[in-house]
């Protein structure tokens, strides 16, 4: 089942002579449960594409469909609500709330939906699965980089999103932790049938994904291959 479709997406920063085309006519789609790696050199437009899909930015042209909703056409408030219900983010710098402990960081996005009850059993399951249960009262600053990234993954999963967008999630981690995090992402994707789109510089990691999309100068230059 097609869960994501990107159609002729363009992104231009600035205007006139200073205009920079960050993305040019990007087209691709993703199925439910697919784990896609997005690779390319710095400045090739990977993160820009990820941000557009995540609704953190608006495309200059084109359409992005997630579960048949055109993200680019949604109003700001609708987009925000759509994002928190359907998309999970994992950032390279973890982006955890420093003033909250692990448990509250994970539960935070759920509480934005008024009237929605926090599924504590589910959060407990995730934290246990990610090996964080014993550290649930710790604060981000008290955790290692790998642990913080696991918290970020747990938080991304808390809302049971359809798509998980990960922007270089292992960029700040050592190789052992990187493997752990990759394993977790894969396992989570399989367990919850989530589509994962991961930006990475690491070719080896990319090769372990279902599909690899290669970007160059703001365009998808082709698919390097799939494992499954």
């Amino acid at each position, binding site marked *: 089942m097609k869960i994501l479709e990107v159609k002729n997406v363009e992104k231009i920063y600035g205007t006139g002579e200073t205009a920079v085309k960050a993305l040019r006519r990007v087209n691709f789609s993703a199925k439910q449960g697919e784990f896609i790696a997005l690779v390319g050199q710095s400045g090739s437009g990977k993160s820009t594409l990820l941000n557009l899909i995540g609704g953190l930015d608006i495309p200059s042209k084109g359409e992005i469909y997630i579960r048949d909703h055109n993200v680019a056409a949604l109003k700001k408030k609708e987009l925000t609500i759509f994002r*928190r219900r359907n998309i999970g983010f994992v950032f390279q710098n973890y982006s955890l709330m420093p003033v909250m402990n692990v448990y509250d960081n994970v539960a935070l996005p759920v509480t934005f939906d008024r009237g929605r009850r926090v599924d504590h059993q589910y959060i407990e399951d995730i934290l246990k699965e990610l090996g964080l249960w014993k550290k649930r009262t710790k604060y981000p600053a008290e955790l290692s980089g790998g642990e913080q990234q696991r918290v970020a993954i747990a938080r991304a999963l808390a809302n049971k999103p359809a798509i998980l967008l990960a922007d270089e999630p292992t960029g700040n981690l050592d190789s052992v932790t990187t493997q752990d995090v990759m394993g977790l992402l894969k396992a989570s994707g399989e367990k919850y049938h989530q589509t994962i789109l991961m930006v990475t510089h690491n070719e080896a990691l990319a090769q372990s994904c279902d599909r690899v999309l290669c970007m160059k100068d703001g365009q998808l230059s082709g698919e390097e291959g799939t494992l499954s």
Partner: protein
Amino acid sequence: MKAAVKLAFQNVTYYKKQTFAIFLGIVLSIALLTGIGSLVYSGERSSLEKDRQVYGDWHYYLYASDEQGKMIREYGEDREGDLQEIGVMEKKSVEEEPYKLTFLYGDTQYLAMLGQEIEEGRYPKSREEVALDTYTITNLGLDAELGEAVELNGKVYTLCGILKNQWSADVGEMRVFVSKNFPGEGIPKCYYLKFDEERKLYPQADRFIKELHISAEHMRTNSALVEYLGGGNMQLFFSILKTGFSLPEGRLTYILASMKENFHLQEKGILLGLGLFCVFIIYSVFHISVLKRISQYGILQTLGISQSQIFQVLSAELFGILILGYPLGCLLGNSTAKVLYSKFDKVFVREDTGTMQNGVHVGNTEAFKVNASFESGDFYVSRYAICFGGVLLVILLLAVCLKIAGRIYRLTVMQMLKKEIKNRGRSRKIHSIHSSRLTGVLTRKFMLFGRGTFISILCSLALGGCIFLCCSYVTVNTQIHNELSFKTDDGLGSEYQVFEESDNLAYMIPKKTAEEIAMIPGIAAAYPVSYYLGEIPLEKNQVLWDKYCAELADDPGWKPDPMVMEKYNGRCLRDESGNYRMKCNIYGYDDGMLEELKDYLLEGHYDPKSLLEDNAVILKTWMDGQGNYGGLDLKPGDTLTVKVPESPDVPDTVLRFLEEDSWYEKKEFTIAAIVSRPMGKNDQLIGDDGTSDLGLIMTNAQMEENFGIVGYNRICIQKEKQASGEDVGRALAQKIKDIPKCMLQDYTGAIETQNAYLQQKMYFFYGISLLILVISMFHIMNSMQYLVLSRRHEFGILRAMGITDSGFYKMMLREGILYGIFASLLMLAVYLTAKQVLLYLMVHVYRYLQPTGSVSPGIIAGVIGVNLLVSTAAVILPSREIVKGNIIQEINE
């Protein structure tokens, strides 16, 4: 140092916005400090000029023989630098009948010093000529025409000059100015001295006394001027402290009151308070500016900068801006103050005109009358405030730089680079288990994350409101005090007073005249007061303040009034057994006045009917210099025996209360109530300053029943609002013309003037609190902006996680409201504490009457509303910047 200055210069020019914020903070704060300083200083100068008009432009006077007078003149010639003017007054004679008239000669300098210049005609040259002031002319019922024949004491004189009315403390005295060759009774001449005001007066007076071998006791001081110009010295400072600490109670009050009188504590306190406020604002703005670029200092530390070098950079930066901002602040503050002063000049002039050394006091009404006619002087720039502010700021801001430098140095380089400057113990509580609204938790956590900033914002928010409430509290009570003082001074704050200017009890205003006065068109009410003099015997254990009176104190520096001693055998006497005999003024009031007297009630209760039925009295008790009333062990229900002359028409010696018992009769009364002040006071016998003399008050009917007093000593008269003051005054003068020794005093307009001043004062102080609020707001906005924008990363995460804009605004609004609530709680807590301190100062240092007023709940609610409004606005404004920003950029901050 050169490198530090260079770096500071680069910082200042690069971070323009932050530099401007600090600059603005400095300019506004300095403007407030120096502006208010100049206003207070100008007010002091104006008060001095006013006192000069009231008490005369002289510093000391003494009675001296002709030989001593010659020496004084020689001293003046030799020591021109010290003694600048000498005025001579010679009392030629004092006539007691039919009016108390003083015939005197005054030279030109004396007349100028006392402000009694000739307004019309000329000064008398021959023995047959006299000059009179308008007060005397009015009370003698003359037409005030030059050349008019004036019959005084059986002799006819020609009125050759009319003098300007004297703002004299002893305004009840009628003075007849005569020529130099007018026959005299050999009374020593009185020399009025004026020293160089550019220098402190005490050393000059000290030199004068020592060189001429004059006893200091003979020198009478114009304390209103000398207090201001004398110059408190360190000796006096330590003496006040020593005396204060040696007191069994009321040490602090004594020290505060003495410092206020001798060292201008109030004015200096205002400057110090404002100086500290300025430092707080500048520190806060500068500190935030440093925090914003703390990572720069991290880089500098990696390059090896030392703590002293950080201090040098910070001080060079701050003082560089201060050097530019200080003059501009002074200019802005003083220009604004000058404009304000031209609009509200009298707000800063003291209302109390002090007490003369000779014991004669100008009551409040008289003081307000002076205010009404007094043209306040020019605006003066206070060099003291500018210098004091400068020195205070330099010292405290150096300390601020040292503190910030120390704080920066204690942080690790990584902390600075990552801007991680907070490190606190954390709660392990999982909030999401108990609350489904984590944004509320976040709000609280964000607020309390930087406790220093949190507290400083709360303080800033609370400060403006708190000052406003304190001002309101003092204003409300000042209004009450003024109204009550007015009443106690004149009886019901009356526009006119008709009174017997005589120390003979037999002189009275007939009952019929009082009734006729009440019927004069334009008169709203006339309150007659009857009077009698008495003596109360008290047991030794009933007098708790056994050194309260000069007669009891046994202090060589404080001698009893010789006139009172001679005519009345003193106010208080202690016999061999240790028991006391106290003179007391006995007043009879009508029902209206008794009702008004309830404002001064300390203990007990009464009503005119029960006073009459029970033949009970109201006791006017003693008050000490600190506003306490516990000098006598007497309470409602106790009985008192009063000894009075057997009739008002007795020889003067009977009033010494030493004659045979047949001259007196004794009456016993029960005390129904105790009050703090009397009304319609009598100053003609033992005197009544309203505080330190005992009094018994009853109904006029009781006065008649007990003592046979049927006439009145004084009538307090109120006119109808629309009635012409001049017409009423003329009718009153006409009505009392034939009553021996009866005088009229006209206070028309004084009450309105006083209320207008109070209102002006209130507006002004509200304005100042508003200004402080504005400066605080500048600080609040600056701090809030930093606080909100420093959380840009966290807000970016929240937005990425799916918080809507409205949800975000709600969260921020909650934070703003919480700030408002906390600030209001802090404000109320500080206000309630400050209220107690103010109450203490009002009662004990300023001796306010009945400071029972409080700020209305509406005003408190209004101030809380302003707090909420300011705090939410301060949070919402920078929040808009966050919402407008790009989420990705915010996350990557």
